[in-house]
């Protein structure tokens, strides 16, 4: 009954169009009244949820990414990717994917990735003879890498939703291999289509010019070196490294690249205010919602329910995947991470999954949700940039959905893909690795 009141009121509020953040707030109030709990408690949870030092990393990462994306970074990353893979058959589609990999290293936003890489490459690909729907489909699918390749503010949101018990550094490193796996899978598919459909080769870039482009892009890619280097060496915390990334992004854009106008800066801040505060207020209200869920023992009940369905871990994991995929097609990523992590993480732990590994499963699942209809932020932006109907893009994306699903299965059932690099970096212990591998390789 508790669950029905809380989740039912949330579903109703969402259905009639109350913004997600405020729906969570109202549902927590309803839940608190139902439990006979004083409402001050809800308010305290909202304010304490927003007063954490870790949370600062989110506005910083988004701001750093926005400065880079709008300050001419996208063009430079595309040129850099062109040097590396442009000369191959189907080169521009590979450039598109590789540019997204690089873009993921400066920003964690798939939407920003699609908007900036897409607006450079979709027209360019069409000019060289690629169908526009294929170009848009590649852009959208490739942009999912941005969620996984560090830095990823969604990983920070997951870490917060997990109660701050999962190290952000470990999550960042964990994203590297799944991100590259995703990129490689898409690239192999693009190569196949290029040969089958006869997409053109690009030309090789003369060495001198290539060096200049590489140097240019290196300034931006240093961002990731600063962030990861800082966190791994223990020089700064994730939050501090994110703030330094903003300063670095600002320095590179305004003094090295110099193609962003000073008078446009207030607009950039205005935009960042609008995009980030939406997520921040969501985190505040989600922490009160999570608190009420815990009081109602929903996570425990959910774990009992799922483990009662089947004895088989693989089957339960598959069920979780299906549930996440379905919810992901209906709702945005950040609210789902915030609502579902407190429920599903205890379940995942009871199955013997490492929280870092489960974070990756969640990010890949919800990342796929961003590019699937009916609701997919990346798909909307991609269709708008490509000036196509959503249905056309979805049709050319069908084979890529297949590829992404294979990646999801690998990330779900092979924990080493997520845990190997954090283990190398010393952020995941030997025991965790053993526990994770023995679970899946008896």
């Amino acid at each position, binding site marked *: 009954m508790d669950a029905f009141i809380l989740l039912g009121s949330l579903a109703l509020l969402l259905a*009639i169009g*109350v913004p997600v953040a405020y729906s969570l707030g109202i549902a927590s109030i309803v839940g608190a009244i139902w439990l006979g709990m004083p409402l001050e408690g809800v308010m305290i949870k909202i304010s304490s949820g927003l007063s954490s030092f870790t949370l600062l990393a989110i506005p910083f990462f988004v701001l750093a990414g926005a400065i880079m994306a709008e300050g001419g970074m996208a063009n430079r990353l595309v040129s850099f990717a062109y040097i590396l893979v442009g000369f191959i058959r189907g080169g521009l589609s590979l450039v598109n994917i590789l540019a997204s990999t690089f873009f993921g290293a400066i920003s964690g936003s798939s939407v920003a990735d699609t908007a900036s890489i897409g607006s450079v490459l979709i027209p360019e690909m069409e000019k060289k003879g690629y169908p526009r729907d294929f170009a848009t489909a590649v852009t959208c699918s490739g942009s999912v890498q941005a969620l996984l390749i560090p830095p990823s503010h969604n990983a920070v949101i997951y870490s917060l939703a997990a109660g701050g018990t999962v190290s952000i550094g470990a999550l960042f490193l964990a994203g590297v291999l799944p991100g590259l796996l995703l990129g490689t899978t898409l690239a192999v598919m693009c190569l196949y289509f290029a040969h089958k459909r006869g997409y053109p080769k690009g030309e090789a870039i003369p060495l001198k010019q290539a060096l200049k482009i590489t140097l240019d892009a290196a300034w931006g890619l240093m961002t990731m070196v600063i962030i990861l280097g800082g966190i791994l060496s223990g020089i700064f915390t994730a939050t501090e490294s994110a703030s330094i990334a903003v300063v670095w992004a600002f320095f590179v854009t305004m003094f090295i690249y110099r193609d962003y106008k000073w008078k446009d800066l207030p607009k950039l801040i*205005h935009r960042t*205010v609008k995009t980030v505060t939406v997520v921040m207020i969501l985190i505040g209200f989600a922490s009160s919602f999570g608190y009420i869920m815990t009081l109602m023992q929903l996570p425990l009940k959910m774990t009992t329910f799922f483990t009662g369905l089947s004895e088989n871990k693989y089957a339960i994991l598959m069920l979780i995947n299906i549930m996440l995929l379905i919810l992901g097609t209906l709702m945005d990523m950040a609210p789902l991470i915030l609502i579902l992590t407190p429920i599903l993480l205890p379940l995942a732990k009871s199955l013997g999954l490492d929280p870092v590994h489960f974070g990756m499963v969640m990010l890949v699942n919800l990342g796929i949700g961003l590019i699937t209809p009916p609701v997919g932020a990346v798909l909307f932006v991609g269709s708008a940039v490509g000036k196509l109907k959503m249905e056309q893009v979805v049709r050319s994306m069908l084979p890529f959905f297949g590829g992404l699903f294979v990646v999801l299965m690998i990330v779900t059932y092979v924990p080493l893909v997520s845990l190997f690099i954090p283990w190398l970096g010393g952020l995941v212990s030997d025991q965790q690795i053993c526990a994770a591998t023995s679970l899946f390789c008896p």
Partner: protein
Amino acid sequence: MEKYLRIMDWVYRICIWLSGSAIVIMTLVIPWGVFARKVLNSGSSWPEPVAIFCMVIFTFFGAAATYRACGHIAVDMLVQRLSAGKQRTLSQIVNVLMILISMFMMIYGIMLCQTTWNQSVDSLPILNVGLTYLPLPLGGFVIMLFIVERMVAGTQSHRPIVTYDHAPELSIVKEGGL
């Protein structure tokens, strides 16, 4: 009516300025803290509480302004299938619910400020805890102003001041998507 909307434009502008200044200050004080600790070897504890205070200001005033810009994430898939008349009724119900939550933020926010007014922040004693929570009720008040505006005058997300930041090449990016 136009005069009223112009006053609300000012409220919006103040929110964006407060929120924008807060994020700029945040991004300056944290690197300063690192610099002081690593280079000047004089670690100070004030940047952290200052940045968190700025983040609370940033969140609540920014979220209020974003409400005017219709930027919050909402599920509109079901609502869009209804007739225009039903959509209007539903949006008024949503407005009433939003008024309720903003009143909750105001009333319980003020209570929270009152009970914590005499505690000082550990790492920065001149700041009191109650003050750091003040953006909650204030943000609740401002968002209520915007909800009332929407109830009387309809959505104002098209006002020039609200669309001021739309970059031509990125204007297709739906706000709220990250």
